């Protein structure tokens, strides 16, 4: 006999859609409603059956596996703890505690997505709002360097385009949607207007927009591939709207300029508040990558790239970030939690993970686990484990499991490891 559980949170992406209806029969999800294809993949592909841990691919007991983890971490001079984007904040907190105890470096997948947005936030501040405000108030929505049609599929219907809110009762008819990108993405097709910026020229376009909004002259012609007349029109729309929001993506953070691009967006948005209400929300990718930033910041003072190797937290983007550490060969053991760096890192950095002992905690098989020394198959928060995750607008949501848990959680395993390792 099946049971339908309403208002379930999907942890696949930073949308954290919390309206799913999940039909469960025994230990299997059989049907889902109000879900995108990524949500279907997450809920239907996860098998909660307990799996034994493995050392070098050989099944072992949990005691043997934990003993090997402790041996590796105690023997390491420069351990790295990395990932954390797809685990719960309770486990993220334990990971920071373990880094503190080991004198390790701890970094999250933020360093490969919106780390530069964090740097910009520290430099100029972040004028932001919640997705509820976007849904209920925004009449001008700009997507800059992001493609939610393929990465955050229900963002349009739940928050930003067709969603109907208090002051946007007609949904899309009450909003103007603009997409700015270097190529006409799937998201551009739903926009009222698409502005194609030349690759690597976002900063120039943003600076010209700031000038135009202040009423300063900009030489006729084009900036960053866009006619100044188009930018003038956009500046006018931004000043005239009732409530505007810019959603920014990795088109700004992963290209030349990085944090400087995002800083220019934050400054532009702050200045627009002299004329109207305007906000910015980074489109965060993994389900709880925002939580990783939050937990790191309130535990260490910094959102990512933190080293405890001197006994206190030190911040070092470019120094303690994962790609830099691995590429320079400065890590001699790695604990990877709920992430797959072998799939995401530049190969020149990922290669290092094949040369050092790696420990993987993950509910799913990963490329990183294929060459890891120790693999610990864990429960999946939001499916068979309870926990907390932060939506992309930093609103924390409680994850209620829909399946019975038979596997250990990241939090439980990290607790066992913390108790067993030698303090540095």
């Amino acid at each position: 006999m099946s049971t339908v559980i309403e208002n379930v949170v999907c942890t696949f992406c930073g949308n954290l859609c919390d309206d799913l209806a999940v039909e469960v029969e025994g230990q299997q999800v059989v049907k889902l409603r109000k879900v995108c294809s990524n949500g279907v993949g997450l809920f239907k592909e996860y098998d909660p059956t307990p799996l034994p841990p493995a050392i070098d691919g050989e099944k072992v007991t949990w005691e043997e596996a934990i003993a090997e983890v402790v041996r590796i971490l105690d023997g390491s001079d420069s351990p790295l703890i990395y990932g954390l984007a797809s685990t719960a904040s309770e486990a993220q907190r334990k990971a920071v505690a373990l880094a503190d105890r080991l004198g390790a470096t701890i970094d999250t997948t933020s360093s490969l997505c919106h780390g530069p947005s964090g740097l910009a936030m520290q430099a100029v501040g972040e004028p932001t709002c919640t997705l509820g405000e976007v849904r209920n108030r925004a009449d001008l929505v700009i997507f800059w360097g992001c493609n939610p049609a393929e990465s955050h599929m229900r963002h349009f219907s739940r928050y930003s385009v067709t969603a109907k809110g208090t002051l946007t009762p007609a949904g899309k008819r009450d909003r103007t949607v603009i997409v700015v990108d270097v190529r006409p993405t799937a998201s551009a097709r739903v926009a009222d207007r698409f502005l194609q910026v030349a690759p690597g020229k976002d900063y120039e376009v943003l600076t010209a927009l700031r000038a135009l909004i202040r009423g300063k002259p900009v030489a006729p012609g084009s900036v960053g591939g866009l006619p100044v007349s188009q930018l003038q029109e956009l500046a006018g729309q931004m000043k005239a709207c009732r409530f505007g929001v810019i959603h920014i993506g990795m088109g700004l953070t992963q290209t030349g300029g990085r944090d400087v691009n995002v800083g220019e967006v934050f400054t532009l948005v702050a200045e627009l508040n002299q004329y109207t209400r305007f906000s910015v929300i980074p489109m965060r990718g993994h389900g709880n990558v925002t939580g990783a930033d939050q937990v790191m910041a309130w535990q260490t003072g910094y959102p990512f790239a933190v080293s405890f190797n001197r006994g206190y937290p030190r911040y070092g983007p470019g120094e303690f970030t994962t790609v830099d550490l691995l590429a320079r060969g400065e890590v001699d053991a790695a604990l990877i939690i709920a992430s797959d760096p072998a799939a995401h890192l530049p190969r020149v950095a990922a290669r290092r993970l094949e040369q050092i002992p790696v420990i993987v905690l993950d509910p799913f098989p990963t490329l990183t686990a294929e060459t890891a020394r120790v693999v610990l198959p864990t429960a999946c928060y939001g499916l068979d484990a309870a926990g907390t995750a932060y939506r992309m607008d930093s609103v924390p949501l409680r994850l209620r499991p829909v399946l019975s848990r038979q596997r250990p959680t990241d939090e439980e395993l990290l607790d066992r490891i913390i108790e067993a390792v030698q303090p540095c």
Partner: protein
Amino acid sequence: LSVEFTLITGRTRAQGDALHRGRTSEAYRRATRLVEMNGEDMSDLGVEEGDLVSISTLAGQVAVPARKGDLPRGMLFMPMGPAANLLVGDETRGTGMPSYKGQTVKVEAV
């Protein structure tokens, strides 16, 4: 003939769907091992849909099938994944972030 292009990597729906079948699956390999190009650029290089093209940077080289995409001339798009990551260097300019987007790459028909 070797021509310079600007490479953009990013998420695709197919890559997302294949992800759930496992990153070790054939579906994931197929979804991430391709390059999209402007149709006129393909003609200039003498490349047809599905032909292999070699893409190289200082970091590495990869040969992947080409597919016509809605892209401006001079731009390539590859889904994020192990194939694209062979081309991305480790320079992060003090931020921790490599150049996943906007790298100059060399392309030639195989």
